[in-house]
């Protein structure tokens, strides 16, 4: 029995990290929005590691925050420990990573979506979606029917979810939830190119059963910085420590002896797992000559004794898991509270998506997060945001919202997905960006906050604060360029102590900061008139001055690339009729349907010779246009 249950502008299926941002963005842009979840107690759950950020992922969170997303604020409010990774390796690769109280995070997010006007949060499993004349019809398992203008699929590992623990496997979502099994069928009816991916998680163990005396401690940073540009610096603090241990020969022995019991190696799992986040048995097999693998022992929250064993995910049987963990120093008597498992799920080939994350040929249907083939909470959240904004913009008759590669990691992530596709769950890394020195975590606001404000998702106060920071930064850089210090014993002593050459003539303060060895703070005593500046501004101006030459080189590169991005390919170009294109290139181009020469040149299987042919075809078309005028 079914009944009509109402209508919305936008329906978001799944209330994980992608679904939350999608629903909030859509509702905040003025669209009536419904957020469906299989279990309301698991909104914003972290079924894998209890942490947010990490290399490149930290960048994504900062970028999302600059655009007006929620994740950064939620992480700041529930941080247990925070570290800036890659200190000493340069500003391009600095990344924040925070241990998070996972239940607190989930509670924060649940409340945030509940409080949002124009957003209804509903516990219901969507079992069917169907195209209608001017939108979509959604049906729940209990027979409620909703009509909506746009649907955002943010189904994560729920869609066709299947858990594997050794010889045992069963249909399930993450963390003991129900899987969404019916929805896959209706997506297949729509002829969406679905595929199976897999991921996994390690065991959670009882804190009291760990011998911490035997382990190295990993502390949080002495000086802490929040994710969000609107969080006060002193609002986050370190509350816990993590610990480090290593696998050993015995661990390896146990794994190799029991490999035949792994569903991964016996062939039961058909899904493709993430290369960048392998299970421990995968690591042992693939890197056979490595003596030991590092693992981190991380608290799951302030009010729980559950500890997460990062780096030790596994799909081996439970009895083997116990042996593996107990072979490790400090874990000799460890008690497992939740076992490790692998989970397989349905997702789409992202080549079927537009850069707006709308499914090609299915107007009003969007995908985000793991459904699009990515891995990670942060990757999911940013896609949710972009899909949410685009669904709303389409309904409101506004321009599509597409971020370019040179603007952000978000743009890079989506361009990679929809242009190159992915053969395993896609994880963001700093090396994915060719503009690393421009796309830093410290300048995410410079790059994106203007856009966030124009979208209407960044409030006036936050935006004004940003403008003030920028003004302070530029004024101070100018002052540093024009303020000179003469050679003196004191300053020369400092310079030689820092390992750089002494002054023989006067130099501007900026010139001194250009030296890699000298920081802004080092010059404080030689620069009595300096204003009092917050950390963010100091960091900005220092990077700006020090890396100016390199930044300019990257900016030149961007300019060159933009010319290719601006060479647009007319919609509906018939690649099968273009002489000189290789067969593979014709197929790939037709499938991806690139918007520009720049995008075409990034498609795997399209060679530069093919691109040259395209360039010439475009020239031909342009000339024809001119001749006809």
């Amino acid at each position, binding site marked *: 029995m079914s009944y009509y249950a109402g209508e919305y502008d936008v329906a978001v299926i799944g209330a994980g990290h992608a679904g939350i941002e999608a629903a909030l963005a859509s509702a905040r842009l003025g669209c009536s929005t419904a957020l469906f979840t299989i279990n309301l107690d698991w909104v914003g759950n972290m079924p894998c590691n209890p942490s947010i950020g990490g290399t490149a992922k930290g960048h994504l969170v900062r970028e999302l925050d600059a655009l007006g997303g929620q994740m950064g604020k939620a992480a700041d409010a529930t941080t247990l420990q925070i570290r800036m990774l890659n200190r*000493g390796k340069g500003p391009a690769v600095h990344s924040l990573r925070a241990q998070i109280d996972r239940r607190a995070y989930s509670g924060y997010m649940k409340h945030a979506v509940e409080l949002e006007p124009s957003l209804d949060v509903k516990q219901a499993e969507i079992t069917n979606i169907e195209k209608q004349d001017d939108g979509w019809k959604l049906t729940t398992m209990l027979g409620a029917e909703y009509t909506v203008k746009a649907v955002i699929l943010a189904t994560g590992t729920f869609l066709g979810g299947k858990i594997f623990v050794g010889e045992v496997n069963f249909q399930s979502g993450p963390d003991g939830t129900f899987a969404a099994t019916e929805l896959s069928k209706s997506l297949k009816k729509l002829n969406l190119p679905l595929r199976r991916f897999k991921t996994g998680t390690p065991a959670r163990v009882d804190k009291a059963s760990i011998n911490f005396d035997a382990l190295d401690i990993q502390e949080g940073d002495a000086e802490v910085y929040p994710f969000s540009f609107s969080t006060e610096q002193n609002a986050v603090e370190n509350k816990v420590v993590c610990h480090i241990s290593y696998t050993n020969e015995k661990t390896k022995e146990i794994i190799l002896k029991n490999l035949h019991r792994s569903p991964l190696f016996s062939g039961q799992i058909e899904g493709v797992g993430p290369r960048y986040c392998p299970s421990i048995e995968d690591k042992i097999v693939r890197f056979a000559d490595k003596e030991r693998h590092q693992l981190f022992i991380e608290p799951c929250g302030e009010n729980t004794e559950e500890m997460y064993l990062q780096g030790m995910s596994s799909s081996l049987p439970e009895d083997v898991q116990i042996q593996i963990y107990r072979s490790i120093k400090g874990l000799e008597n460890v008690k497992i509270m939740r076992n490790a498992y692998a989970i397989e799920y349905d997702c789409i080939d992202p080549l079927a998506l537009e850069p707006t994350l709308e499914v090609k040929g299915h107007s009003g249907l969007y995908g985000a997060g793991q459904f699009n083939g990515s891995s990670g909470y942060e990757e999911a959240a940013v896609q949710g945001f972009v899909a949410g904004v685009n669904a709303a913009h389409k309904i409101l008759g506004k321009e599509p919202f597409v971020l370019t590669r040179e603007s952000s990691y978000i743009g890079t992530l989506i361009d990679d997905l929809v242009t190159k596709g992915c053969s395993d769950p896609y994880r963001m890394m700093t090396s994915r960006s060719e503009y690393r020195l421009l796309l830093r975590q410290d300048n995410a606001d410079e790059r994106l906050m203007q856009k966030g404000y124009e979208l209407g998702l960044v409030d006036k106060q936050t935006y004004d604060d940003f403008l003030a920071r920028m003004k302070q930064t530029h004024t101070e850089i100018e002052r540093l360029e024009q303020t000179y210090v003469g050679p003196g014993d004191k300053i020369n002593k400092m310079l030689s102590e820092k390992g750089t050459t002494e002054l023989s003539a006067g130099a501007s303060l900026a010139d001194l900061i250009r030296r890699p060895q000298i920081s802004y703070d080092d010059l404080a005593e030689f620069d009595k008139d300096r204003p009092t500046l917050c950390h963010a501004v100091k960091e900005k101006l220092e990077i700006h001055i020090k*890396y100016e030459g390199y930044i300019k080189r990257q900016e030149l590169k961007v300019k060159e690339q933009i010319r290719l991005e601006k060479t647009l390919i007319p919609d509906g170009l018939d690649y099968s009729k273009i002489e000189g294109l290789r067969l593979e290139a014709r197929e790939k181009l037709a499938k991806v349907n690139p918007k520009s020469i720049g995008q075409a040149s990034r498609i795997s299987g399209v060679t530069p010779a093919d691109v040259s042919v395209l360039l*010439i075809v475009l020239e031909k078309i342009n000339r024809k246009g001119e001749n006809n005028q």
Partner: protein
Amino acid sequence: MKTIAAIITPLGMGGIGTVRISGPDAFAVADRVFKNQNGKKIADAKGYTALFGKSYNNESLVDETVALVFKEPKSFTGEDSVELSVHGGSFVVKELLNAVLSAGARLAEPGEFTKRAFLNGKIDLTQAESVMGIITANSHQDLKMQQNLKEGAVSKKIGAIKNELILLAANIAAYSDYPDEDLPETRIENLEAQLKFAKSELHNLIANYNAGAVLKEGIKTVIAGKPNVGKSTLMNMLSGYERSIVTDIPGTTRDVIEQTVMLGEIPLKLYDTAGLHESDDTVENVGIKRAKECIDSAQLVLAVFDGSKPLEKEDKELLDSLKDVSKIAIINKTDMGTVVDEKDFDGIICVKTSAKLSEGYDKLVKAVAKISGTDRLNPDSIILGTLRQKECAQDALGSINLALDTMQSGFTIDAVGVCIDEALEYMLALTGERVTNEVTNEVFRRFCVGK
């Protein structure tokens, strides 16, 4: 698409000169210029046929002509084409081209035939580039190198450098993207050594290219020396026949005489200059001034000295003035005995000759090969084929140098990584694995009018 035409054989060389006409009106244009002896029209001829007749510029006869007819798409460009061949010699061929142009064709832009061939799917970009290399190959060794290029020896070498850079970039990426992965720091410590390796490999490639360019383009060489040391006799020895006026009155050669001769594998563009000495003779003074200008712009100076006498003031002044110039000292007139003090030529490559008796030629060949770097090129040397490729290699080298600087001055690894990425991109542009507007335009710009 306009009908275009151009001379497709090198001017002034060979017995036949050819003008190609290509485009939709190719047959009509050709028929306005070419008259078959039997009155047959080119437009009525089948593809792949040859017609004999005469061509005319307006009413005046240009020359006897063979017309080769190609029908779309079976031609080089893929369009209707006619190739009109006349007897060589630049005047006749140019006259034929003028006739064709006034009959309605437009002069082809550099590379336009190839561009059209490419456009019509007849050839791909890399083929186009190697076709160009083979057409312009000058000497045997150059041809061999172009073939090497085509056969992929160069690609292999470039590939090796590229892979080295990829490895470097990957190490930095792993180091930065997996801070918690317990990776050995030593990989980063090796960075400098690896960068230096890539640097020296690229450096060699560029040096080889420069030597290769010598084979292809020749060296502008000036024969200098005070009057009557045997400059003109030397030039005659090199060119094999009497070109300069040789007398024993000082100051016979009053102007600069130009000639290209092959010295071994190397084309020398020889300039014989007026004897360098102070003179009251006005005409001769003009010659001396031009001689000095010539030396300033020369790539190589053959400084000739009379070995049968001790060096004089003017000889020493000449040596002084050549301090920063690439040069070979020719100690001439060995047939009259050698009294010159060799200490005066410390650190300079010297060749003893008797130009009069044609002795010392082989030694000179070796010395020139050595000084131009072509001696360490063997036909299997890895040489980049085009200036475009060399420029890419140079840009890559620039980025690697910057990476080394960045590292040595204590900057962070992310800045080093950015420089390595940049070097890698130039290498990809070199191999044609990365396309930019510039690359495509540049490739076409560099195609000469022929082919």
